[in-house]
């Protein structure tokens, strides 16, 4: 017999033995577990996607710095999550913040369960949310934040702002207990990062006009938006924490809202400025993804189309008009897209949520039931986003001033004129010359 036959026989024997010894843990649903593990990988991919999305929008001399700051979140927020982030967010605590019982993931074993999935699956899934939330903020600071300040800001912000707000909504804190609806993170992820971006860019100050440049690479923005759109199915459909019909439902409304918002943004600028742009299409897609996030497990498909239209129009004018009117220098429109988009989504959840999706224990939103129940839910939604805006803004100001007082926040004017890629990293984003432009030092 050839060697390959032996390999096949050995594999068969091993499979036979392992299927005898493998058993499902009591209460663990392998289908759910597999889907949430897959979703975790999808959501993690959103962070490199965001790096491309933001990198493409940066000035050509700051593109590496922007991409690297976003990747840095994967490094630092991942480790913070294992050390104490997960514990502060999800372990038993009070109305405000979780306790310290699972610091270092202490006491969580491969047998631990969270619902019908392994607790480690839940840890992994939630880690990816913490990572991208911090990363979203950094779009506001293009071209003017010290790299060391960024490395200090990420774990501080995750601890002081992300973990408490996550606990409020999903970890057993006051917002979840009151019945404020946030399926996949409209408040926790998007309003949180939008409000933080506003605070951080106010503390940092404006860029010099000469250093505000057109996007370095618009096709790369489209690539990033595509990866975000793809990964967002893990974000929203995965937030069901089960591989069931409601997850599929969340998938469909996510796609529908995003498609609507992308086209709506393009139509807005087409009418307002005369030309449809690729940057507008990509921005509108992200605005739609943001707005449907809190609503995705609660609203019907037609509701999601209406949320998409609101997001496309609202985020377009927030980014183009509101920013200019108020004068804050939010470089890549984190406030306009994530802050406003998240707010639109959180509010619209109270308008369009329906028992058809949520089941008999759910709520019919104001536009569905036209009743007191809907008004009550709208009030709760407003309370949810207003408190998140307020807490995230104030707490981020505090974090920003701590960083400013210790390592300093802002780069020097000379560094900003040179570009942070060369000034901070000694590395250019693009080297396209075929002729040698320097001498190799060995």
């Amino acid at each position, binding site marked *: 017999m050839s060697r390959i036959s032996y390999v096949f026989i050995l594999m068969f024997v091993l499979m036979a033995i392992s299927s005898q010894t493998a058993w499902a843990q009591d209460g663990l649903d392998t289908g759910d577990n597999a889907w949430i593990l897959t979703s975790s990988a999808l959501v993690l991919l959103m962070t490199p996607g965001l790096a491309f999305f933001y990198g493409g929008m940066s000035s050509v001399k700051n593109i590496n710095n922007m991409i690297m700051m976003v990747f840095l979140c994967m490094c630092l927020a991942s480790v913070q999550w294992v050390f104490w982030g997960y514990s502060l967010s999800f372990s038993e605590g009070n109305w405000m913040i979780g306790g310290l019982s699972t610091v270092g993931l202490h006491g969580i074993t491969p047998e631990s369960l969270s619902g019908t999935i392994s607790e480690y699956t839940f840890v992994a899934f939630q880690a990816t949310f913490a990572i991208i939330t911090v990363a979203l903020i950094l779009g506001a600071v293009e071209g003017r934040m010290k790299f060391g300040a960024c490395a200090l800001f990420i774990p501080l912000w995750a601890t002081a702002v992300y973990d408490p707000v996550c606990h409020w909504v999903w970890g057993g804190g006051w917002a979840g207990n009151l019945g404020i609806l946030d399926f996949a993170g409209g408040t926790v992820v998007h309003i949180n990062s939008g409000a933080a971006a506003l605070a951080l860019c106010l503390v940092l100050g404006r860029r010099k006009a000469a250093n505000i440049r*057109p996007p370095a690479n618009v096709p790369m923005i489209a690539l990033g938006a595509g990866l975000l759109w793809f990964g967002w199915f893990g974000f929203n459909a995965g937030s069901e924490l089960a591989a069931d019909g409601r997850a599929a439902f969340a998938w469909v409304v996510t796609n529908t809202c995003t498609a609507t918002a992308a086209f709506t943004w393009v139509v807005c600028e087409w009418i307002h*400025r005369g030309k449809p742009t690729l940057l507008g299409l990509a*921005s509108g897609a992200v605005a739609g993804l943001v707005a449907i996030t809190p609503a995705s497990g609660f609203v019907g498909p037609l509701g999601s189309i209406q949320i998409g239209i609101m997001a496309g129009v609202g985020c377009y004018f927030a980014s183009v008009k509101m920013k200019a009117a108020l004068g804050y220098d939010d470089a890549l429109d984190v406030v306009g897209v994530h802050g406003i988009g998240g707010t639109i989504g959180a509010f619209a959840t109270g308008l369009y949520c329906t028992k058809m999706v949520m089941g008999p224990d759910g709520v019919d939103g104001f536009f569905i039931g036209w009743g007191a129940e809907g008004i009550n839910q709208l009030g709760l939604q407003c309370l949810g986003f207003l408190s998140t805006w307020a807490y995230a803004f104030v707490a981020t100001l505090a974090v920003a001033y701590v960083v400013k007082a210790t390592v300093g926040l802002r780069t020097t004017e000379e560094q900003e004129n040179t570009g942070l890629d060369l000034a901070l990293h000694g590395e250019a984003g693009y080297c396209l010359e075929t002729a040698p432009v320097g001498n190799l030092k060995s």
Partner: protein
Amino acid sequence: MKKVEAIVRDEKLSVAKEALKALGVAGMTVTEVKGHGTQKGITEVYRGRQYAVDLLPKIKIEAVVDDKDVKKVTDAICEVSRTGSIGDGKIFVSSVDEIIRIRTGETGEKAI
């Protein structure tokens, strides 16, 4: 010996190059340049932020030719590069004092 510097639309490079080759022009140097003349430039809008781009990309073709060939060469470039719209470019002709071929050390018209 005259140097012909023609600034043309970038999409006209290939036809201009072919036209010069057909006239037997021995060599040329091509550079991507930015500039403006009568053409005022364009406005780009990114998320509502406007950038007035008043320096537009053009192609500069430099070729050194015999005095007697100047008219032929400039006519040929004009003919193939003209669209009739603003932004077609310009041609500058200037005298060249000396040419040296680095490989052989030849000078003057032999080195063209």
